């Protein structure tokens, strides 16, 4: 995808907040950095929810989302229109989240704290009672969180964010075949873990 020079002429009369992502980026690249606000407002909830789905804790969401949008702001002058803005932004978000996960792993190793243990325990607690929708959701979320990151992120991007295989491949910078096989493997693991836990819910 090349730089869409024609967009400026086409949507010149459209109010700024309704302009397409590409038009806003072009305005940004031509010096009007104030339009960045509209891009942020358009995607802040998507990015915040993506982080929330990955980490399943609200405390980290805003700080990490701020970092991601700052990184995007700094990199936006070099945006080459080779992908859509939001898959590009998602790539930044996923990479930053992976860094954070790695940092946490090191920290966890140093503090000898096992998250696996706490996850299992809470799952046991959760599954000891009869299910309602909320509990089912919690069990599913916790089980998803127990999957390795490599399989978990494609499932989040597909099932929570509704991205297509092509878009997931762009975000994760890999082939579509890899996306399919990771989704398939991830779901298989998820299914095996969920079957004994939510027997009554299906």
């Amino acid at each position: 995808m090349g730089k869409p020079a024609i967009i400026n002429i086409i949507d010149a009369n459209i109010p700024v907040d309704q302009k397409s992502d590409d038009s806003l980026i072009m305005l940004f690249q031509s010096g009007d950095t104030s339009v960045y606000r509209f891009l942020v407002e358009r995607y802040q909830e998507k990015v915040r929810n993506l982080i929330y789905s990955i980490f399943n804790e609200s405390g980290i969401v805003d700080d990490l989302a701020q970092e991601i949008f700052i990184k995007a702001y700094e990199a936006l002058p070099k945006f080459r229109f080779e992908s859509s803005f939001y898959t590009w932004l998602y790539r930044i978000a996923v990479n930053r989240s992976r860094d954070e996960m790695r940092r946490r792993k090191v920290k966890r190793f140093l503090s000898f704290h096992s998250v696996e243990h706490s996850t299992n325990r809470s799952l046991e607690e959760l599954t000891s009672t009869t299910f309602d929708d909320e509990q089912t959701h919690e069990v599913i979320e916790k089980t998803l969180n127990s999957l390795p990151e490599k399989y978990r992120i494609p499932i989040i991007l597909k099932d929570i964010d509704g991205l297509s295989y092509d878009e997931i491949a762009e975000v994760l910078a890999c082939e579509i075949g890899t996306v399919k096989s990771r989704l398939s493997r991830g779901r298989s693991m998820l299914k095996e873990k969920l079957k004994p836990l939510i027997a009554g819910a299906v």
Partner: protein
Amino acid sequence: MNVIDTKELDRIITLYLDGELDSDAVKAFEEYIATHPTVARDVDVLRLAKRSLKEGKRIPHNDWFWLRLSNTIDRSESRRKRFPARFRSAASLAAVAAVTISLIGIVYLKDAPLYQSYFRDKKNQLQNTLMQGNIIPFFSHLDKNDVLNFALFGSLPLDSANGTALTVKNDEHDGAQIEIVRDRSGQRLPPVTVKEFYANVGLHAEHERQFVDSMLETYTRKLQASVLVSDKNEIAINEQLADLNRTMVSSIAASLKPTQRARLQRLLLERQAPYAVVSITEPKLEPHELRQRLPKLPAGNRYVVISKDTVGFAEMTMDVEAINERLRRQAIAEQQMMAERMFKEFAEMQRQFENNIVISGPDNNTIRVFSTDKVFQINLQPPGTAPSYGGMVEVVRPRRVPPTVPRKPLNDVVVIDDSAFTFELSAGEDAVRAFRRLPRGEFRFEIADTSASTPKVRIMFKSTPTRKEIDAVLREMKQREEELIDIDSLLRENKKREIEMLEKKNNAGKRIFEL
């Protein structure tokens, strides 16, 4: 569809659930699962998971997100402009060198002033982090009527519907106070508008009105910079706010003619204002001379920062104009939402500060914070301290106004020594001994000087402690004290038994000897 291996089956299930199979493949797969209940169950489990994840809970919207982000971007942009890229690497090297030199100074020279300045710098850094994120003026929409009422009566409405107001006073009887009072609707007189004020005081000439107008405008900015809120739910109040309204009313009174001053005096008395004009004719100075000798607008940048669970100081310089400009761009609905949220948070803060908390400030000032369901009070100067005006002309003087809420006795006080983020607690000897036995490094507190007649335990924190941390330490102290008492009683018991045994032995010896 015949027998399929597991891996291939997983792949087909995934494509089926994602709607990526063509219609023929869908039909074939559905026929397959109709005859394979185990596979059908797997598909059901994954379908449920997919649906549940799609409809799952989402994180609540953050109204402050853009404001905070734009602040950070502005800061980094201005840093970049001030400090071009080619100097940045050199600057980092310089910073590393400076830190190394300081550390060498601390480790090898063992120079006391160096220690002090190192910790002072460290403390300042920590203080600055108290108000991270967005800082916006709490009073972003003040009009001249609000400012005039603050000058005359020391009160600013926070929430007109519920009668919540911020009030300030500084007199010898109660000391310097900033209060947030709830539900004053019963006690409040209606505010005075600027128009009514001009009519009441007799300001008829255009130049006289213009002068008061320009003063109110200057004070608006000062007031806006005096009470700040952050998206981290902290509120920061300039510690000189309690003197601000006196400066304001003094300046207004000084600009008036004797007859106008008499009218102002009547208005202040009628409305139970906290200040009264000292004399209608005195001091006998020309207005311009008088204005030069008035107390100046407080210029300090030190704020008392109160969050849900901690109190501290922070030095902050506010560019109110820049922040207001950003606020003007923000939709009014968003701002109202922020204000509503802030009020909710404030109610939470009030619940947290049920006890008196005394903060020992950097200039040996103590600040007391306490809260009831009716008032949240910050006492900046203890009662009995006469306000100082440094030789300035006294145009107005404090009047004794009955307190709006009953004062709380100074019991159950936690003293926070802000100079090193330490807490000093009067502790029994047992507790001090108990603390000595605690393994160092595991805990974030130490024992202070115990040579004083009342031993003290100093608890040192790496950063400003939260209320939760204080409570944890207090619990720890209590527990240790109890444990120690148990150990001591056991020791006493052992000693008693030893003596008894010895006596028995002696008696037995005596008996043998007697035999």
